[in-house]
């Protein structure tokens, strides 16, 4: 199969997956016991008012009609209208997204660097005390709930030593489209915005706010990278071409990086795609811990408000995002490793 036809097939396969996923979420919110509108507004609201709200939100038509409306709306980028403020959900989610994206990118960087370095180290020292220590670190970090790790970091670095901020993305209140530190908010990624404006103070401040949440989330995800790098390196280093390279008298470093890591790293890419889902889940908890105004915080507010349309919107958004990321990763993987295009 050529790369082109692989990409087309893989992209076409994403459509039923996303559609199925949207349907599952739709059904969870509509079919499970309880009328979502009633759950939100409580039993005290008078029936006429409730009927009016349901009509305004399009919840008074039969379920198949609601489904049709929802799916057609989805293709136009419409995620429904929130109960709590009767505003469209999609723009609210899009404006919260840059915060989540910035957190995710930073955390992924921490995860890959820590995970791959420790994984290589531990495979090199296979069976030694160091290997055991690194693997124990992996198990412990993976067993720590990400929000608990975040809370520990806060109490050490923010509360006990006052080195880093305990939460928020940047000092002061930031209106969307407004300015922070004289930096105009363009992309919503504060680090990028301050670089674009050439504002060093803003950049430093934004980075200072990123350190703790990215460390918490990154370390949590790093355990997976550590494990996969270690086992792939062990497998790669056991191959005959590595023994041959060693026999030819190549330096250990050359063998390790040019022969071992190059082949050991490919699966790491796949895991990056798979772990993106875990990253999104972790981001929700991390955002709550660090008062980070992203989609996670949006979901938690929606939970408190019992705003099912907003929850549904955020969940669908995450689902589509994760599917697209895994599509991109698969294509990248096929490009790098021709064997995958069966």
């Amino acid at each position, binding site marked *: 199969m050529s790369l082109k036809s692989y990409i087309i097939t893989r992209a076409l396969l994403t459509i039923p997956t996303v559609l199925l996923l949207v349907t599952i979420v739709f059904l969870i919110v509509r079919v499970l016991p309880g009328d979502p509108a009633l759950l939100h507004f409580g039993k005290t609201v008078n029936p006429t008012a409730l009927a009016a709200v349901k009509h305004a939100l399009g919840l008074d038509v039969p379920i198949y009609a609601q489904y049709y409306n929802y799916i057609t709306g989805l293709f136009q980028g419409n995620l429904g209208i929130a109960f709590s403020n009767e505003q469209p959900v999609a723009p609210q989610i899009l404006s919260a997204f840059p915060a989540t994206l910035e957190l995710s990118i930073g955390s992924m960087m921490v995860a890959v660097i820590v995970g791959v370095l420790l994984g290589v180290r531990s495979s090199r020292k296979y069976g030694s005390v160091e290997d055991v220590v690194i693997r124990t670190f992996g198990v412990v970090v993976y067993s720590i709930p990400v929000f608990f790790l975040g809370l520990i970091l806060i*109490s050490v670095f923010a509360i006990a030593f006052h080195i880093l901020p305990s939460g928020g993305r940047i000092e002061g209140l930031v209106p969307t489209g407004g300015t922070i530190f004289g930096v105009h908010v363009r992309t919503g990624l504060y680090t990028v915005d301050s670089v674009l404006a050439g504002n060093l103070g803003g950049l430093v401040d934004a980075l200072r706010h990123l350190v703790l949440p990215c460390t918490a989330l990154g370390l949590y995800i790093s355990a997976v990278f550590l494990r996969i790098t270690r086992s792939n390196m062990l497998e790669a280093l056991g191959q005959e071409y590595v023994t041959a390279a060693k026999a030819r008298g190549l330096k250990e470093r050359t063998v390790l990086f040019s022969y071992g890591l190059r082949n050991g790293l490919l699966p790491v890419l796949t895991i990056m795609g798979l772990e993106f889902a875990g990253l999104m889940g972790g981001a929700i908890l991390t955002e*709550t811990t660090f008062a980070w105004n992203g989609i996670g915080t949006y979901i938690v507010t929606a*939970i408190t408000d019992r705003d099912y349309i907003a929850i549904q919107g955020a969940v669908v958004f995450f689902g589509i995002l994760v599917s697209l990321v895994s599509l991109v990763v698969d294509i990248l993987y096929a490009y790098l490793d021709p064997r995958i295009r069966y």
Partner: protein
Amino acid sequence: MVVIGIAIVVFLVAMTVLSPVIAPHNPTALSVGPADSAPSLAFPMGTNRLGEDIFSRMIAGGSTMMEVAGLSVLICFLIGVPLGLVAGYSRRMVDSPLSLLMDSLYAFPGLVLAIAIAAVLGRGVVNLSIAIAVVYIPTYFRVVRSQVLTIKELPFVEAVKVEGGGTLNVLFRQIFPNVLPSIAVIASINVADSVITEAGLTYLGLGVNVAAPDWGFDIYYGYQSLLAGAWWTVLFPGLMVVLLAGGFTFIGEGLSEVLNPRLRR
């Protein structure tokens, strides 16, 4: 590794079961000490905002988490394993739609899905267990299915078929026992994940919210105290969650090491 893991888990379960006898204070008695007081001889782990003894709450607080984790694994086992067996053994007509459904669920951010289900279902041990189970059923399904695909081609299965063994006989008496070791590995790692997911949902305000003490709830509840400097209100319940999840992870890691000799040199 397996031994360490089992020791940790047995210790924690025994502690929870024996809590009425060994806890120095009633874990839900208010104001047994001053509010948010630091660890001391009288209160080895300090007290929380309501003046409850944290040490006693730690001894007694594991039951909800263990119930939810255990129940969700049971649900996963009862649904994921049979579906995986059937999908792996049957032809494409059954296998393809099932696999597509499971792959969609698997690709989904687990916690996000659990949040949606837990939010709609409402509080309670069973509801929370269902929310968590839905996330992990695809894992069981995929592992069992892929194992069945290889095992069903093996000569001993062919032999039973030739002797006239029925489909159910082949599936549950011949293939199932051979899949069990892999299921044991997933189940133990899955319990660890369930524990962490349960703690996460509770932290987001979707917990069981019972009157009984609960580690997950204590982390959620201690947040305000922690920001005021009372780190012990969060540290100890957090460590208990880590210990429980870590115990199960050790069991899973150890088991998979034993069952996957390729990684041993």
